[in-house]
Structures are given as structure tokens and as C-alpha cells.
């Protein structure tokens, strides 16, 4: 279970997060939506302290870290319990697909190499890249790179996987293959927090959507409910803009 309470974050004078509370249960898939600049990505990055919150607490499982004054040990512990899939993949450029996935298992989890290798291969097969294990990131398409990124996170068996706009950098025709993989692992009951602009994906896969704007959670709840009958005015406006088919009459 992940519990964020009263998370704030300011970059200089600019307040990006203005006190966010969010609880994610085990096995839950939560989609965070909202216009750009609303603080979704910053919130996600506060969970594994790639961004240090200005205040609040982050808890994963029974482990809790103070946002403002975390110790190195606390940050490390949170990172061991989570994994992240990045918008720009961030695969280790000098390592093959297999080495990318093995790296965390061998270096961080200290799993013997042979065992880590076998496990990494099976996870890469799961994301449909069994034939590409020896390819370097530069030899893979965006969609394939992102699937390696997902495999790298998945192999660590973290308590939660954080997805930071996993399809935003992809060519439109490659979005499908990545969403398909995420959809599949969502069904396996892995806890996921997904920042996304893919409304269809959020509606179909998420158990809950959280709508953010200007550093605050505006509305949250069942995706079918929110997409069909948003309560807040800002949610309505946003959904209208992002699903234009409703606003056009031809």
C-alpha cells in the first residue's frame, strides 16, 4: 500500500504541489490525469524521491519517509520498494536489453548472475522481446525500448511500478504495443500508478482515476463514473478538450 500525505513541492517560488493526499491499495491501478503543468509527473517523482518533496510524508508498505528531511537510507529503502518507467525510456545506453533488465537484479538485489539472467530473459519474453535480448537500445524502436523499460521495472518485483507518461514520446503507431503490455501486467495484480494522457487506457485499465490541476487533486474516483459524469467544472473542461469528438458537430 502506498500512502502520500500532504505532499507539497515548490521549485523556488513556484508551488507545483499544494498538499496532495493519495492512498493506493495493493494491486490497484491508479491513473493520474490532468493538464500539463498540473504537477502529475512531479507527484510521481516524489514517490521515489527523484524529486524531493518540500513537505509531507511518503509511505510504501510499512515503510515511511519524511518528505522534507529524508535520510539517504530512507530514500534508498523507498527506491528498493518501487520501480519507474520513464517517458523517455532512460534505458542504460551502454547495455543490451538483457543487461538493462539484469542490472538491478545483480547489482542491487545481489541475485546470482545465472539466476538473474534466466529471470530477465523470461520477463523480456513476457513483454514480447525474447528475440531482442542482445540488442542495444539504439538498435530498438521506441516501443521496443519502452517495453524493455517495463521489463526492467517488472523484473525487480517492486511493490509499486510508477509509470511517467510511458507512451508520450512514442510514435502513434507504437503506442498500442506498449499499452497492451501495461494492460497485461495490470491484470496480474501489480500495483501501478500511471501518469498518462491516454484517456481510453485510463478508462479501461485503471481501477481509479485521479484528476489533478494546479497542484491539487480536483476529483478522484471510478473511471467510468468520472469520464461519464464528472462533478467538477475543471474536470469537465479538461475532458471536453481532450476528447474532442464530443465537442464537434459535423
Amino acid at each position, binding site marked *: 500500500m502506498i500512502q502520500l500525505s500532504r505532499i507539497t513541492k515548490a521549485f523556488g517560488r513556484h508551488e507545483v504541489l499544494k498538499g496532495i493526499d493519495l492512498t493506493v491499495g495493493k494491486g490497484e491501478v491508479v491513473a493520474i490525469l490532468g493538464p500539463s503543468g498540473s504537477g502529475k509527473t512531479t507527484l510521481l517523482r516524489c514517490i521515489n524521491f*527523484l524529486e524531493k518533496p518540500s513537505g509531507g510524508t511518503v509511505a510504501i508498505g510499512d515503510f515511511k519517509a519524511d518528505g522534507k528531511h529524508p535520510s539517504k537510507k530512507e530514500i534508498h529503502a523507498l527506491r528498493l520498494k518501487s*520501480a*519507474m518507467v520513464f517517458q523517455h525510456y*532512460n534505458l542504460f545506453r551502454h547495455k543490451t536489453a538483457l543487461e538493462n533488465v539484469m542490472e538491478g537484479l545483480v547489482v542491487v538485489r545481489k541475485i546470482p548472475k545465472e539466476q538473474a539472467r534466466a529471470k530477465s530473459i523470461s520477463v523480456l519474453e513476457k513483454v514480447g522481446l525474447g528475440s531482442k535480448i542482445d540488442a542495444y537500445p*539504439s538498435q530498438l524502436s521506441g516501443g521496443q525500448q519502452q517495453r524493455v523499460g517495463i521489463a526492467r521495472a517488472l523484473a*525487480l518485483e517492486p511493490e509499486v511500478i510508477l509509470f511517467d507518461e510511458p507512451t508520450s514520446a512514442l510514435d502513434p503507431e507504437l503506442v498500442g504495443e506498449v499499452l497492451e503490455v501495461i494492460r497485461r501486467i495490470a491484470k496480474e495484480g501489480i500495483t501501478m500508478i500511471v501518469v498518462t494522457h491516454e484517456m481510453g487506457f485510463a478508462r479501461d485499465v485503471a481501477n481509479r482515476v485521479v484528476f489533478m490541476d494546479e497542484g491539487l487533486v480536483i476529483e478522484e474516483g471510478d473511471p467510468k463514473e468520472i469520464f461519464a459524469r464528472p462533478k467538477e467544472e475543471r474536470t469537465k473542461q479538461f475532458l471536453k478538450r481532450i476528447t474532442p469528438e464530443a465537442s464537434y458537430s459535423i
Partner: protein
Amino acid sequence: MKLDPAFIWTAFVQLLSVIPTTLLITAVSVLGGFLIGTGIALLRLYRVPVLSQIAAGYVTFIRGTPMITHLLLIYFGLPAIVDAVSESLGSSFRSVSIPYLAFALIAFTITASAYMSEVVRSGLLAVNRGQLEAAYSIGMTTPQALRRIVFPQALAASLPNLSNSLIGMLHGSTLAFTVSVVEIMAKAQIVASTNWKFFEAYLAAALIFWGLTVLIEQLASRIERRINVYNRGGVA
């Protein structure tokens, strides 16, 4: 003046004997400079308070003064310090027993460290921040992330600059001559003056330096090809 082609060969053979001295000076100063330079680059990149300012001052002073000045300052300054220290410790060690070569090694390591720190820094800056974040996200500590993810990529990115510095230090090592270390140029002068055939001797020295440089270039391009298999060429 008449050229004596045969003497070029005679000189060439005699010069071969001191190649190890030149290579030792080059290797020690480049390796030592690389290690110290890496430390300096990290201090500056992480903006470590006080130390990073000292490091920046060190780099600008060393790069702002000629290599031969470093050598002479060390040669004339270090003995006084060594003697004072060893005297206060009651040791019988005196600076006269320091071999000339040691002064050259220390001075050139200092020279190289300032230039290397910039080479390493540019390599580190070439690594995308996302690489470090990805390393953190899978639970690596900073030393693990630097060693396994950042340094290998930074090294690959700075290889062309590194081979440049290596060649520069190889040629710079000839200054050791001024503190009586017999390296290639000193030997060339000795060979020349005993026979009064300066041009031939220096020509032989030039050929040796060129040969060594070509070797370094070959070696560098081979390493570059091996280390950069993952790169699909920069802008090309």
C-alpha cells in the same frame, strides 16, 4: 652542411633505449592526472562547498601557467618543503636523494590533472541525467550508479579528448630534459653533440615521436570502436 642518412639510423637506434623513460613519464602523468582530474571534476560537478572553489582555482592556475613552469616550481620548491618536513619529523631523509625523474613525474601529473579534469567533466556532462535517474529508480546508490552507469558512458564520450591529452603529455614529457632527465630529446642532444650531427639526431627523435603518436592514435581508435558499439554515431 651535408646530410648523413646513415647517422639518422645510428641515432634512431640509440634513442630507442630511452623510449621507456618517455613512456613512463607519459603514462604516470596521464594516469595520475586522470585520477586526480576525475576527483576534481566530481568536486566541481557536485558543487562541494569550499572544495569545489579550491578545485576551480587549482584548475585555472595550472592551466594558466606553462608546463615548464610547473616543473621548475616543483624542482626548486619541493626540496625545501621535503627537507623542512623531514627535519621536523627527525627523519634523516633529505631531498638530494630524490631522483630527478620524480620531480618530472610529480610536476607533469599536476599539469595533466588540470587538463584531465576538464576532459572528464565534459564526459560526465555528456551523460544524460535520465541515466542517473534510471539507476536511482532501480535502487542503486550514488557510487553504484556512477561506477556502473555514468562513468562508462562518460569515458566513451571523452575518449577523443583523452587521446588528445595523452598525445599532448607524450610530447610535453620532453620538458623533463630541463631537470636532467634523459628522455628522447635529451638523448638526441647527447647523441648529436658527441657527433655534431644535430639535424640527423633530431630527425630521428621526430620519427620516434611520430611513431609513438601513430600507435596511440591506432590504439585509441580501436578502443573507441570497441567501447562505442552501442552508439550509432553522433550527428552523422
